C-alpha cells in the first residue's frame, strides 16, 4: 500500500550539488481507517439507542359507597385471571358455580379471546377485568395491559382476585410446564 517515491532524480545539477530527494506528501491512511472502524464498532456496541418508555396506568378510586362504584354489566365482562407459568384463565360474564365457563389460555392466544369477545359484545357493555393471581409475574401484568392497548380496549380494570377465584386458580394452574410467554 505504501507508495514509494519512484520518480528518481531528473536532471543533473552539476557536480557537488546534492539532489534533494522529493518526498511524497501522501500518507498511508490504512491504519487510521482500521483504528476508526475499531472505535466505531466499540461505540456501536456500547451505545443504547432505545430510550425506556412509560406505560401509564390510572387506578380507580377505592370506594365503599355503592352509588359511586362503576357497575359493569355482567354479560359484557371478560375476566382474565393470571396464573403462574404465564397461564391465563378467563371466563365471560359471571363465573358459574361449577366452573363450567372457566377456560384456560396463554399469552399467544389471549388476543383472539379478547377480540372475539369484543366483537360479540356491544361496545358500551364491554369491559375487561384483569385479576392477577399471587403467582403471576410483573411481566404478565404489563403484557396483559399491553394487550388492552394493542386491541384498543377502552374499558379495563385491574382488580384484586376474589377468594373463590383464587381457589379455582390454585386448583387449575397446577405445576405444569410453563406456557410460552408472549
Amino acid at each position: 500500500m505504501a507508495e514509494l517515491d519512484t520518480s528518481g532524480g531528473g536532471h543533473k545539477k552539476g557536480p557537488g550539488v546534492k539532489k534533494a530527494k522529493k518526498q511524497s506528501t501522501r500518507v498511508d491512511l490504512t491504519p487510521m481507517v482500521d483504528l476508526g472502524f475499531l472505535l466505531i464498532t466499540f461505540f456501536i456496541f456500547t451505545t443504547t439507542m432505545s430510550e425506556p418508555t412509560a406505560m401509564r396506568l390510572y387506578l380507580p378510586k377505592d370506594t365503599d359507597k355503592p352509588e359511586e362504584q362503576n357497575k359493569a354489566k355482567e354479560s359484557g365482562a371478560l375476566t382474565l385471571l393470571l396464573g403462574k407459568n404465564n397461564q391465563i384463565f378467563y371466563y365471560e360474564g359471571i363465573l358459574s358455580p361449577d366452573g363450567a365457563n372457566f377456560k384456560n389460555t396463554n399469552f399467544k392466544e389471549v388476543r383472539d379471546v379478547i377480540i372475539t369477545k369484543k366483537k360479540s359484545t356491544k361496545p358500551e357493555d364491554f369491559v375487561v377485568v384483569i385479576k392477577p393471581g399471587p403467582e403471576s409475574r410483573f411481566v404478565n401484568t404489563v403484557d396483559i395491559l399491553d394487550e388492552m392497548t394493542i386491541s384498543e380496549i377502552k374499558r379495563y380494570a385491574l382488580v384484586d382476585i376474589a377468594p373463590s377465584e383464587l381457589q379455582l386458580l390454585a386448583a387449575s394452574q397446577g405445576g405444569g410446564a410453563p406456557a410460552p410467554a408472549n
Partner: protein
Amino acid sequence: MPKVKVPRKSTSVDMTAMCDVAFLLLSFFILTTSFKPDEALKVTTPKSVQTKAAEMKDVVLVTMDKEGKIYFSIGDDNRDEKQKTIDIIDQQKKLGLTQAEKNAFLKSGSFVGVPFGQLKQYLGLNPDQVKNLKQAGIPVTDTLNNEMTLWMQAANSAFEGKKMTLLVKGDMDAKYPSFKGVIDAFKKNELLKFQMITDPENVPMGTELFKTNQRRGATQEPEAQ
C-alpha cells in the same frame, strides 16, 4: 502483430474518503452514546408497545427487583424534596436521624430498600458497605404494615404544588403481590396516576392498534386509559 500493452495500475486505493466516513461515524457514535450509570439494582423491565418516552423530571421512583423487593428513590435534581421527605419520615417514625445520616439520603443515586426499623443504621453505612449490603426491601405485602404508604405520603407532601412523576420500575420476574402492595400504597395516598417503565417493542402486525397507527401515519402514540 503489435503487442497490446496492458498498463499496470497501482493496487493502492486512496484511503482518504474511507477515513473521512469512518471518523464521521465515529464522532456520531461518540456524541450519541451515553454510558449507563453503574446501577446498584439490576432490573430487567418488561416490553410494551408504548411509544411515549418515560419522563425523567421530578421523579419518584419505586423499583421492584427480581425477588419482589421494593426500593424507594427520588430523582437527583430534587434535593429539596429529598430533604423534606426524609424530614417527614424522621418526624413520623421518630427515628432521630442526624444530619449526616440525612445527607446520606440526599446523596445522588441514593435509594432506600430497608424497613424503617433499619433506616438509621442503613443511612449510617459508608458507600462501600451500602454496595455490599443485601437490602431487605421496604415491606409492602403486609396490608397492615405497608411502609410504602408512609414513604409515598412523605414524598407527596414534599412535592406539594409540583407535579410529581410517579414511576414504577419493575423486574419481569417480580411476583404480583409486591406490585399490588405498591399500588395499594399509591391508592391510600390518592395517587391514582403512575407510569411503569418498559422497553419499547413493535406493535404486532394486523392488530387493531397496528391498523390505527397506519391510518394515523404511525406518528401519534396510542393513549392508554
